[in-house]
């Protein structure tokens, strides 16, 4: 939680903007942050990769978005969904809502099919801008980060307040629904809707920050599976596309068989001295 709070604060360090309603115009705004953080948020000091990607895809004349895709591939290959677990402000806000003591329902019949929805959202966000220019579908109709940005802007600026209409009402309804769902389901936005989560999930299997289970020490107690709020079975598939690397399973393992890190899963190098070899012979 500490890392998540620090990451959210760092990505929204333009504190003055929250009071003036003016967004940052610093040069850092040209650099994409790894998580979902709307660049229209008055606090944002970087660019949202999803917004930037859609902006490129919807621009005419069309240009291949090397820069944004490159950063997404870089973050994905380095961290995978650890971005979701540690660096995304929206993920952190959902975790805060999960702290509210309500009856949690993380395992239900529709959970698995609904998880596929985020891949559809990703596909729609990437494909639709080709057909309808200058329309970032995800940002316009779904993204809760943009809605939160609008609330901050509207609170500080009367002009913005007067311009909000039916589209904002729709986005606000989506945001309220997600807030309510977050009280009962762990990270519903990350599980079912986030296109960035879908994208980074594809990298989990090859990302350098990874998980590993030591099969020789695992006692198969199932505590890791029971504690996982993302519905992952770490023993079967620790590098599942759904794993956000939160590390809950690490703490729950009585045999200390689970590990996350850049060197997790790497076999220790055994150095055998010449003298030892002679003894073996």
């Amino acid at each position: 939680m500490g890392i998540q709070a620090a990451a959210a604060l760092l990505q929204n360090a333009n504190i003055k903007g929250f009071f003036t309603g003016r967004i940052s115009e610093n040069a850092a705004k040209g650099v994409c942050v790894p998580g979902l953080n709307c660049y229209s948020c008055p606090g944002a000091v970087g660019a949202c990769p999803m917004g930037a990607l859609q902006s490129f895809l919807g621009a005419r004349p069309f240009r291949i978005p090397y820069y944004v895709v490159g950063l997404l591939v870089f973050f994905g290959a380095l961290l995978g969904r650890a971005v979701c677990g540690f660096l995304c402000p929206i993920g952190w806000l959902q975790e805060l809502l999960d702290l509210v003591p309500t009856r949690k329902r993380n395992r239900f019949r529709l959970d698995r099919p609904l998880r596929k929805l985020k891949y559809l959202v990703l596909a729609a966000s990437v494909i639709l801008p080709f057909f309808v220019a200058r329309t970032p579908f995800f940002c316009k109709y779904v993204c809760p980060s943009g809605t939160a940005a609008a609330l901050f802007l509207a609170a500080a600026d009367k002009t913005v307040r007067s311009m909000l209409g039916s589209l904002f009402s729709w986005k606000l309804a989506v945001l309220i629904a997600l807030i309510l769902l977050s009280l009962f389901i762990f990270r519903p936005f990350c599980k079912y809707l986030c296109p960035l989560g879908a994208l980074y999930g594809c990298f989990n299997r090859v990302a350098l920050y990874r998980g590993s289970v030591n099969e020789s020490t695992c006692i198969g107690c199932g505590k890791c599976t029971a504690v996982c709020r993302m519905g992952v079975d770490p023993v079967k598939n620790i590098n599942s596309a759904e794993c956000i690397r939160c590390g809950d399973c690490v703490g729950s393992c009585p045999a200390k068989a689970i590990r996350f890190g850049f060197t997790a899963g790497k076999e220790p190098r055994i150095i055998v001295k010449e003298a030892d070899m002679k003894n073996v012979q």
Partner: protein
Amino acid sequence: MKNRKSSRTAGFILLAAGAALTAAGLLQGQYASVLAKAIRICMECVGIG
């Protein structure tokens, strides 16, 4: 063991590919395009349309 090693290699290759794509984008001036978009309020994003 072999799988783990190949997925690590794939990770390094993708990391290098990401860095190369980012560099290619920077050379094409795409940083400026992102900056130009990011320093203005995105009307769609905030629900104005």
